[in-house]
């Protein structure tokens, strides 16, 4: 029996993909609204759990992130390092190659740096040592990226699982060497490498030990923007990402692009490892990458793979992290609380993308329909 128009129950609302897209200002309005909503929910959660005035809590958060000169530098350093890893994964993401192995690539690059500092520290003149360290970390990262890329290009293996597994291998290798090179022996940690001689430590600019890292990453950001936007490589990456068949049709060697891009991506992760080990930490442990390899995925996505937007997204994430950690110290809460706050805010930020890409249409209220 054929249904009449009235018998069809129209749902209260339905979701429609925005085909044309919305103007940029509207998209930003949605994003800002989502952050505001997130702060509101966080305020409610905070009041429920702690009874503190939410305004005080937000003040504490801002103080925690940028309250002192040292915190600002610390924030900048963390933004720079997160941004560096995010920039590294972005070319692969643009190619729709889901490289979630940045954590391992950073660690392996860092380990290469650390081993140069430990094994060659006293044998090579400093400039040569830097060259070797630089080459070793980039190659190590690149190789860690190349392995899954080769298998993907050759046999179309699943790069997500492959790169993920490579993380664990890298972590275990770092654990192994932390044990071999532990200092003092038995502590299971390498400690500060070349503490007295400072051999293999990247130089500091003036009195600011983080400035070099920040400047390197700033330069890298501009470079990556140009590379992806204006270079032939960048174009090839975009085409392969859109459609491999199209790429083949217009004569792009897809395998070569995949391998080349992952080599590049891995090498940049290796560079991040170098900056972390030689530039700031002067040691290596399983925690050196600090989860940045995974957070970078979010930074890159939220910024829609645009290197300039990534400055903003990595800043937001690090700001939240630092601020939230201050809340737990100030109000005597467990560290988990700061993770709850960060989680809520990130949830809303990601959620806002949904409303930017889709619109919600409510059913038009006709008397007949509603009565049924």
């Amino acid at each position, binding site marked *: 029996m054929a249904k009449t128009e009235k018998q069809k129950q129209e749902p209260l609302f339905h979701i429609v993909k925005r085909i044309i897209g919305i103007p940029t200002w509207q998209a930003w309005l949605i994003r800002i609204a989502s952050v505001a909503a997130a702060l509101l929910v966080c305020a409610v959660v905070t009041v429920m759990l702690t009874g503190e005035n939410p305004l005080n809590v937000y003040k504490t958060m801002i103080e925690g992130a940028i309250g002192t000169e040292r915190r600002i530098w610390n924030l900048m350093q963390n933004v720079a390092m997160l941004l560096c890893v995010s920039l590294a994964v972005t070319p692969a993401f643009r190619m729709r190659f889901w490289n979630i192995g940045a954590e391992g690539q950073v660690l392996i690059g860092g380990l290469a740096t650390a081993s140069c500092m430990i094994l060659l520290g006293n044998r090579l003149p400093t400039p040569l040592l830097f060259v070797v360290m630089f080459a070793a970390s980039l190659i190590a990262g690149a190789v860690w990226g190349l392995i899954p890329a080769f298998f993907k290009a050759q046999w179309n293996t699943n790069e997500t699982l492959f790169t993920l597994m490579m993380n664990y291998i890298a972590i275990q290798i770092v654990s192994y060497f932390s044990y071999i090179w532990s200092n003092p022996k*038995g502590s299971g*940690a390498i400690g500060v490498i070349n503490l007295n001689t400072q051999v293999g430590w990247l130089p500091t600019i003036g009195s*600011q030990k983080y400035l070099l890292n920040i400047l390197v990453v700033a330069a890298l950001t501009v470079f990556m923007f140009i590379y992806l936007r204006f270079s032939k490589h960048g174009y090839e990456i975009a085409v392969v990402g859109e459609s491999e068949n199209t790429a083949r049709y217009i004569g792009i060697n897809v395998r070569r692009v995949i391998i080349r891009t992952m080599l590049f991506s891995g090498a940049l992760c290796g560079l991040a490892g170098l900056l972390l080990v030689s530039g700031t930490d002067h040691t290596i442990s399983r925690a050196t990458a600090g989860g940045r390899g995974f957070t970078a995925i979010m930074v890159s996505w939220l910024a829609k793979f645009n290197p300039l937007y990534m400055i903003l997204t990595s800043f937001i994430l690090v700001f939240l992290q630092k601020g939230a950690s201050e809340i737990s110290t100030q109000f005597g809460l467990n560290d988990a609380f700061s993770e709850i706050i960060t989680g809520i805010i990130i949830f809303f930020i990601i959620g806002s993308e949904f409303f930017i890409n889709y619109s919600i249409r409510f059913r038009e209220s006709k008397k007949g329909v509603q009565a049924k």
Partner: protein
Amino acid sequence: MKKVTKLLALFLALALVFGFAACGSKESTTNETKANETEAAANAAEVKIGFICLHDENSTYDLNFINAAKEACAALGIDPVIKTNVPEGNECYETAADLVDRGCNIVFADSFGHEQYMIQAAKEFPEVQFCHATGTRAHTENLPNYHNAFASIYEGRFLAGIAAGLKLNEMIEAGQFTADEAKMGYVGAYTYAEVISGYTSFYLGAKSVCPSVTMEVQFTGSWYDETAEKEAATKLISNGCKLLSQHADSMGAPTACETAGIPDVSYNGSTVSACPKTFIVSSKIDWVPYFTYIINCVANGQTIDTDWCKGIADGSVKLTDINTDVAAAGTAEKIEEAKAKLADGSLKVFDTSTFTVDGKALDSYKADVDTDDKYTPDTEVIENGAFNESVKRSAPYFDLRIDGITLLNEKF
């Protein structure tokens, strides 16, 4: 519009980079003002103390510090700043520096691996006191504001060993095994001085009441590995050990003992609730006396000891309640007796007349007191007929392999 946002983002980033680069020179003046403030701190209530902990309350090791910090500070009417989950890396230095910025006069860190970063911070902020538990470098760094602390936990282990020896005697008398079969097992984390000092004092305590006792030690190579500790305990039990003790942080060994019905002398706090049928007694370090001491030192403008190590007489080492269901009769009395002798100095844990190395009594031994990578022996530690543990520095350095104890493996 798109272009404008991008330019704005770029501009902001550059402004941040250079804006903060420009304000680097103010630091020294603020440090000077802080130094004056420190001198002005007249009483304990004005002292601000910050704590750096490797993990949070979920780790029994850190919980012991956190509870002590809260207790000591509450008694003195001050509010501690506690930073948890601070890894043993650059993050530790950053946290220490941040605590200084908050106005802390004392910064304390609880984990061995924090030491290098604490020293780095101590060099940068000479007006702030940096105290570090379990570290070994304070006496060689020669920094007036960097201090190590530990407790004479070997005294606690010695007393706990007495309880173990008495239990063995009771089982021998009950005919469960002969005196020659009295063998104990010990699950250790790593084969280095802190653990060696611990199991040797435990063994000597047991031997002081049960002369025929021997001991086997199995190492796990981790401070916290429940499975490995359980396996090590099970291996020792199958080797014929009649009683176990451990120096590692999980419940692996105590629960293995409970399953097998083997008496256990625990560490770091009572395990009686999980092991009611086998738990005898446990020793632990109480940090409240140390925290009270350093806060008072700063409040009164006194110097903090470079190496601080107090024991059972000062309340820095404590024994838990004895589980009378398992412990032998008269254990409490015997422990009290030994405790009094330790306090007045008539009893020494590492008395060289009570142990031999390769069949010979020792009259001289150089230990690795000044830390280096290769454990170079550098300091004479046998004086007045005893090995002077924790005297030359706070962290343990007793690393002799004495007769009667067999190491089944070694883990570094």
